[in-house]
């Protein structure tokens, strides 16, 4: 792996902290006991803003923190969460951010549709494929009830989140926060 510059490390560390803060931003849903949290926004924006390499690392560092600290939404964390029924979602995040980053960095100024599409593929497809698989394995249930419980209730909300995250990513790109292949100045 290419050595990380100090500036890249700072971005990754602060982004992982940002993920924790986003876990406390909740939109309660009227029809589900599980609220929408800001952390999925974080995963999508990590890919779109930091790019594939840094996005992957930011979420990997966040997961590593979650291995020992309660940083996931709702204040959970620890090795038990990874082995538990919801561990697949958490483990899928670095991959999701990588894919979103990869798809959006193909063009210099990605359009709304491209970011939205990348968010759907990474933030929904990758996350739920891994998440539901682990849910089914750990809770020892069939795939269909696992999808009904672990994916379907969230997908409408997640599609909206994909769109909102794409809008936010475009606005943030205008701020030129991160040199996409970062570390140029350091």
């Amino acid at each position, binding site marked *: 792996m290419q050595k*990380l510059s*100090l500036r890249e*490390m700072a971005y990754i560390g*602060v982004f992982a902290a940002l993920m924790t803060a986003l876990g406390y931003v909740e939109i309660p849903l009227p029809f589900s006991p599980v609220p929408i949290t*800001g952390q999925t926004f974080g995963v999508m924006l990590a890919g779109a803003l930091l790019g594939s390499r840094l996005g992957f690392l930011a979420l990997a*560092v966040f997961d*590593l923190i979650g291995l020992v*600290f309660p940083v996931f939404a709702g204040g959970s964390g620890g090795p038990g969460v990874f082995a538990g029924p919801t561990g697949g979602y958490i483990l899928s995040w670095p991959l999701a951010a990588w894919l979103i980053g990869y798809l959006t960095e193909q063009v210099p100024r990605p359009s709304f549709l491209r970011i939205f599409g990348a968010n759907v593929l990474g933030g929904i497809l990758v996350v739920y494929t891994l998440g539901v698989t682990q849910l089914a394995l750990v809770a020892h*249930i069939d795939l269909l009830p696992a999808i009904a419980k672990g994916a379907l209730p969230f997908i409408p*909300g997640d599609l909206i989140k994909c769109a909102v995250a794409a809008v936010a990513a475009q606005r943030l790109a205008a701020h030129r926060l991160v040199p996409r292949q970062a570390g140029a100045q350091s």
Partner: protein
Amino acid sequence: MLRDITLGQYIPGTSLLHRLDPRTKILGSILYILALFIVDDLPGYLVITVFSLVLVALSGLPWRYVLRGVRPIFYIVLFTLVLNFFLTPGRVVWELGPLKATEEGIRLGIFMGWRLLLLVLTTSLLTLTSSPIALTDGIEYLLTPFRGLGVPAHELAMMMTIALRFIPTLLEETDKIMKAQMARGADFETGNIVQRARGMIPLLVPLFVGAFRRADDLATAMEARCYRGGVGRTRLRELKFAARDYVALAVSVLLVAFSLADRLLP
């Protein structure tokens, strides 16, 4: 509101679990999870349950506090129980309309739910009995042998430390931005789901802009102080295994050996 949240549930203390090396506790937790997923019958579960309860007792923490950690997974345990009761094929023992609970299902459901409860209960002891700094150090030490494979151990630990340092700052900032936007008329509390999701934009944009600015400042400050990365860097705290750590690790390995025996022997 957001400011009330304290990260880390670490409760300082002097119990045996508190004094163990953080590496021992991390490795021990992983071995424990392994054993928990291997055992598959009543005696196995009973032994592991007794083991878990002994650990909680050794931690010297109030039971009430440890049990509180189990609350978030209550629904998932319930869901596991119910689905396994009714969806496992086997001898029907109870019928409720079209739903048929089977003997095998009840057995399996109870074991699975029990396993999830123990999983969360026991692994929460890790964060309850170790300080954040000890845990980060522990992870860095544990990752160091993998440096040859391209795992940047020191860098990962440094990024974790940066993240932990900034979590309270960013929580406070999130709170501040929410209040500032509400003062400008932003509405985070009402409307349908689309409106609420869109309401996140005025929160997300300033939050990210601020966070990246902080990251930039931090990098500049570290450069100005000649931070050079992990090579040749000395540490304030050196981790050292004591006799109790070897004993604890041996007990963890024995637990895994027991669970294997439980699984393989009839």
